[in-house]
């Protein structure tokens, strides 16, 4: 190597130090950026030359910028992220449902039912008393109102969740498009064998969001392109093309989710926020509505059967207390109300078995209905049925809370592990910075020494 070759060696050394400084700066700047994996400059000795006595390198070369990541960990995080999103969304939905039924000491359906029975008990002792009759009719009206109200709020909540499903599907499709396009950009950028670190960071963020929303699984193909499979068994993204989800309205007005080939996959979607939303919409809320329907229908049938055989204060055969009679075959909780005739004139309430005005035995019977088992309620009494339904919901909420805690811990554990590979440590960067600074200074010094030597050589024969 000639003397001027050493200048090149010094230059490479300075370039390497500068790139090292830039890498540290980049890492420090992005310490908190989501999806960012720390970069590391990989240096390698430059092409060696033969010198007397052996081989010497011609300085340093920058081999490549490395993006520090653990693909296996990344896949695990994706899987668990779906569980975390699912638990979080499920807890939110179930808590919303529980909120509809109110706290234990508030005026909920259960308490309205107990008050209804109590009012009819009091009526039995003085069935011809106007005040007692008003009280009983008011309690029946309050009970019907509280069932209708709970049902209407469940129905509202269901359409709200339905809208959220629609919004989530749109978001999933938009993310799928981003993923497909990132797959293409990364393939293009990495054609020369380098690592397109910034694009990969972006793709990681998109994948995390997709997993959170759908609970789907990402897998890298041999070409480095990420394929994204949904838990419903269909593929969302393959290679550079996205296969967006479609939607269609069902007969009941709810949104159905269609795979790209048009298959209805709504019921197979169990995972991620979308899965939880669907579970809450089609299962949790619907089962509460069905329970209320069963309760309303059973109460209407049994109470009206009692009043039908009885006579009112004037001695006329009694009409139904709850209308419609018979109860509507579907949505009876939506329509249950006290007969408007009885609401207007409580003397029409029929509680006398014998026809005598002082006979309140039917009021006694009606008071006992809430505690009497009914085949229509699975052999439970109305009171027990409601209590079981409320505590069943409470158990589901508590379970979702536990699931969320577990998922959070698992994901946090994995994120900590990911951070141990990909996370930026400022202390580390501080050292890198110093190291590169010194190395730059040394290279500069090397060049200045070289300069002096060269000057010496140039001036050798000037004297």
């Amino acid at each position: 190597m000639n003397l001027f070759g050493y200048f090149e060696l010094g230059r490479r050394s300075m370039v390497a130090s500068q790139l090292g400084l830039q890498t540290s700066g980049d890492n420090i700047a992005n310490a908190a950026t989501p999806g960012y994996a720390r970069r590391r400059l990989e240096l390698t000795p430059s092409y060696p030359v033969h010198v007397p006595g052996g081989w010497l390198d011609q300085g340093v070369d920058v081999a490549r910028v490395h993006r520090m990541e653990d693909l296996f960990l990344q896949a695990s995080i994706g899987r668990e992220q779906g569980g975390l999103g699912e638990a979080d969304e499920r807890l939110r939905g179930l808590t919303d449902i529980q909120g509809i039924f109110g706290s234990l000491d508030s005026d909920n359906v259960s308490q309205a039912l107990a008050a209804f029975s109590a009012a009819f008990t009091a009526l039995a002792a003085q069935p011809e008393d106007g005040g007692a009759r008003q009280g009983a009719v008011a309690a029946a009206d309050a009970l019907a109102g509280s069932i209708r109200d709970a049902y209407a709020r469940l129905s509202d909540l269901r359409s709200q969740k339905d809208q959220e499903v629609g919004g989530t599907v749109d978001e999933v499709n938009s993310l799928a498009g981003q993923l497909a396009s990132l797959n293409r950009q990364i393939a293009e950028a990495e054609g020369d064998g380098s690592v397109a670190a910034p694009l990969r960071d972006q793709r990681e963020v998109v994948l995390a969001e997709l997993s959170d929303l759908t609970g789907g699984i990402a897998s890298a193909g041999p070409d480095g392109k990420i394929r994204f499979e949904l838990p419903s068994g269909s593929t969302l993204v393959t290679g550079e093309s996205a296969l967006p989800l479609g939607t269609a309205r069902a007969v009941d007005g709810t949104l159905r989710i269609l795979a790209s080939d048009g298959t209805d996959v709504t019921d197979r979607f169990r995972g991620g926020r979308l899965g939880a939303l669907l579970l809450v919409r089609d299962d949790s809320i619907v089962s509460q509505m069905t329970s209320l329907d069963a309760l309303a229908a059973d109460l209407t049938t049994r109470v009206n059967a009692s009043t039908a055989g009885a006579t009112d204060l004037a001695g006329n055969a009694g009409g139904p207390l709850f209308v419609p009679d018979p109860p509507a075959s579907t949505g009876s909780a939506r329509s249950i109300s006290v007969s408007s005739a009885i609401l207007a004139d409580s003397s029409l309430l029929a509680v006398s078995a014998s026809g005598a005005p002082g006979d309140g035995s039917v009021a006694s019977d009606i008071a006992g209905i809430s505690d009497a088992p009914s085949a229509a309620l699975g052999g439970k009494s109305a009171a027990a049925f409601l209590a079981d339904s409320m505590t069943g919901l409470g158990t589901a909420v508590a379970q979702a809370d536990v699931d969320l805690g577990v998922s959070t811990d698992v994901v946090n554990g994995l994120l900590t592990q990911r951070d141990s590979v990909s996370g930026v440590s400022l202390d580390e960067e501080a050292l890198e910075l110093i190291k590169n600074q010194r190395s730059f200074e040394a290279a500069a010094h090397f060049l200045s020494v070289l300069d002096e030597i060269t000057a010496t050589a140039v001036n050798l024969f000037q004297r």
Partner: protein
Amino acid sequence: MRVGDRTLFLNLLSGLASSREATARAVASLGDGKRVRTASDDPVGARSAIAFRGRLAAIEGYGRSGAAARTDLSTLDSVLGEVVNILSSVRAEAMAGASGTASDGNDARAETIDAFRDQLVALANTQQNGRYLLGGTETLTPPFLADGTYQGNDAEVLAPVDTTSEVGATIVGTRAFQDSGDLIGILTQLSADLRSGNLDGVAAALPSLDTAISGVSNVRADVGTRMNTIDAFAIRHGDESLRLAQSIADIEDADLAQVAVDLSAAETQGAALSTTAARILGRSLFDFLG
């Protein structure tokens, strides 16, 4: 293990979040004194609390029913007491009239007996809040005509006082006024005998009156028993309500001492974490180099 800065940051954050959550829970408990507000806070306890509340409401209904019956029965009690008083007075008049020595006053006695008979009919048609108490469940029509004909029925208004217990709140008029002798009939006959001077007939009324007095007294005793039954249920229900309220409180209410301990634990944890965060996050190698 290599520890990135974000790991430290996230760990501190989640620790602080959990201490804040514990603080919020404790503060909420202090606010309303509750540990369990919704079923999810304690599903098993909530199941019992719901059942207890249902029973409390039922007891309240039985209380209202019992109180209404109690009012009716205490009116009946005084009505029957009055009937016995009248019958005793009638008996005294009959004794005097039958002796013959003072038979010249028998017309006046007959007048008195007639007045007593009218009083009996009025008592038999006693009303409370517009309801007749001696007509069985025919509570809206006067049970007795002036001649003593019974127009009521033979069923009683049954007031529920517990799940399977009922107490009659009215009585069947015939039990008091006819079953141990037709009171109106006896008085009508007595008055006629006094007027016509049929002293044998007047004397014959005495044993009938005795039977009638003891019959009415028996019915009155029965009314008293019913009131006692209602009172006994009221006392029992009072105790039960207290127990139920206590049980609900045991399930739902927060133990304030426990809340205070939780609060101070959360506070300590939060303070420790904040101090740690201030020390760790505020310092890096950058402070010492360069």
